[in-house]
């Protein structure tokens, strides 16, 4: 059963910059600029990039926590970007999100059980049924049932993230957006959480959008990868291909800067590319390629026009070199 569940086309998210005495729009931040991708059910898409490159904004737009400026997000053929809040309601349960910081994304004044039942509120299910479901999920994420009446502060970071995952999964979603689910956790707990996520995916056939800056993790979790830089997709393709033969200079630089543990791992990485300078501010984007200022292979053409996303083998690369 592999149909295209999610199809994103030309997704753009521009935020106005307000200023002046009248507090009017003086500029625009192009947080996300025409991003295209598609995702089959039961698969994982990884999004990697520096902080501030628009990874999280893409996730939030798909979960409709933000309304995109333009573009379409087709979920089983329905463009959810065009729906009103009321007509979107039935989809809310189908698209869920797990947030980065487990400590601050759970309301500290409510019990775990109440938090877990929140996503079920629009469904008219009897309370007994809901409770049974919540206890079932607590078991699924490896916590005992007596956590139902506890408060978030009584749990450790890893346990809280498990609650976050249980909360996302309780409404039987088809797509879960994982926004850096392990970056606030220790390595030893990170492995537990990833195992749990993979187990849930196998059992429930949920598609994941895995947003992370931990590239090694994305390589092991995702089947498809998007590499983003300043709101643009720089490279896109199957995870194996991107990590074994990266094409875009930015991807190569990202991969080459991963600290490794063994020589075997180090030999898998491309040779070191030194990135000069800083990321340009999102308010003043260059006319040409957004990466040009830091690119070691910069050409005259790069500063004048922005390269299109061209297909090279299985990958798509946005670079004039190809």
């Amino acid at each position, binding site marked *: 059963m592999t149909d295209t569940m999610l199809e994103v086309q030309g997704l753009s998210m521009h935020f106005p910059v307000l200023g002046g005495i009248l507090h009017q729009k003086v500029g625009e931040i192009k947080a996300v600029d025409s991003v295209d991708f598609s995702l089959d059910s039961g698969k994982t898409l990884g999004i990697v990039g520096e*902080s501030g490159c628009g990874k999280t904004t893409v996730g939030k737009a798909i979960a409709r926590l933000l309304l995109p400026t333009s573009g379409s997000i087709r979920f089983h053929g329905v463009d959810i970007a065009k729906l009103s809040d009321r007509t979107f309601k039935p989809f809310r349960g189908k698209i869920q999100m797990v947030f980065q910081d487990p400590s601050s994304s759970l309301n500290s004044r409510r019990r775990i059980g109440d938090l877990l039942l929140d996503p079920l509120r629009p469904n008219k299910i009897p309370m007994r049924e809901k409770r049974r479901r919540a206890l079932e999920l607590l078991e699924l994420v490896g916590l005992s049932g007596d956590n139902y009446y506890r408060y978030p502060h009584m749990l450790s970071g890893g346990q809280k993230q498990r609650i976050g995952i249980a909360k996302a999964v309780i409404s039987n979603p088809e797509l879960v957006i994982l926004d850096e689910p392990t970056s606030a956790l*220790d390595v030893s707990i*990170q492995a537990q959480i990833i195992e749990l996520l993979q187990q849930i995916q196998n059992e429930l056939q949920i598609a994941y959008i895995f947003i992370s800056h931990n590239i090694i993790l994305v*390589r092991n*979790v995702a089947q498809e990868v998007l590499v983003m830089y300043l709101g643009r997709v720089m490279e896109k393709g199957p995870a194996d291909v991107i990590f074994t033969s990266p094409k875009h200079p930015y991807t190569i630089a990202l991969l080459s800067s991963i*600290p*490794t543990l063994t020589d075997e791992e180090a030999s898998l990485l491309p040779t070191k590319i030194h990135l000069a300078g*800083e990321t340009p501010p999102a308010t003043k984007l260059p006319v040409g390629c957004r990466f040009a200022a830091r690119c070691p292979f910069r050409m005259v053409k790069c500063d004048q026009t922005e390269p299109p996303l061209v297909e090279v083998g299985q990958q798509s690369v946005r670079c004039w070199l190809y």
Partner: protein
Amino acid sequence: MEAHQWSIWRRSLMSHFREAISWLTKRGGGPASRKDKLKCARAYVPHVFTEGNRITCDILRIEDLVINFGTYDGTAYVVDDLNIHVGEREIIGLVGESGCGKTITAKAVIGILPKQAHVVGGKIIFKGTDLLRIEQKMLHEMRGKEIAWIPQDPMTSLNPVFTIEDQMMDILKWKGTYKLSPISYFRHKFENRSTANVKVEVIQMLERVQISDPERVMKSYPAQLSGGMRQRILIAMALLGNPSLIIADEPGTGLDVSVQAEILDLMQSKVKEDGNSVIFITHDLAVAKKICDRIYVMYAGAVVEIADKNELFADPKHPYTLGLLEAVPKLTGGVGKSIAGMIPNYYDPPSGCRFHPRCPYSMPICTTEKPLEYSVAGEHQVACYLFGDKRA
């Protein structure tokens, strides 16, 4: 009023009294802390140590350090018999999960422990002086000049209302000054003699940390700079005093991979140039491998394994180190295996080896007696009964 509340209230009242008395009698001022009680003027301990037939000259030696936290829930036994030594021009790494006492150990070295922490026993010998037994004033003179600190979070560690120039020049002007009197402050302010020299020095330092446009950066406020830039400035600030020991508390952890790699390269090269010793605190084994010479693996307030970095990664011994290494996701495939269980509760830590409840090789003796550090090969030491002295 309950008994414990009364005792807390009385303690705070007493400290106010003591403060008032010391202010009236003008004996240095400040609340009388535990350190003042321990004050035995300058406790000089010989600087050179002999280990077997070898004479080592260590910059810092932490011996049997024990730190407890007095909290409302009881006493937390956080650091338990810690031994660390840092040689000259050596970069050592403290590696462990969060909450294993890495930062507390480092804070004890420069004497900025939180109020509720008590150093119960042990010595911290820096260049022959026991830092736990000298006066606050002398410790203050050492900070910045002899021992510097690179904080973890570049976003919150700089003062947002002063320019970079002000903050960096302040270090050069006032480092080691304890209790600045208003007169000397205003004299400095109006004479303005040394500012030009100081400015040149600041610019040079900013150039050394590869900031391309130091003049502009100096005039800007922290909020106008990127995270990587701010972390560079924090490194520059630590290097300004030309300290013999730098404590780096996970620099660059909050930054992106590419920026972090640059920061690490930069720090390594500058430290090699200046010949400072560094205590590098991190939870990332790969980062430790990249930058450190020797690595201490810590678990629950105690060192479990000490080894040269190549040795440690080629031949890890302690079950905890093995677990940590397995937990890291690999490029070659696999998301890693987690260590079962959790970090122990510090109010009631496990008896014997603190790792035994999570250890797959746990033996009866592990539950009763704390293992010593057994030498495996040369400097490679492991605190585990699997590698020596079964006490059978």
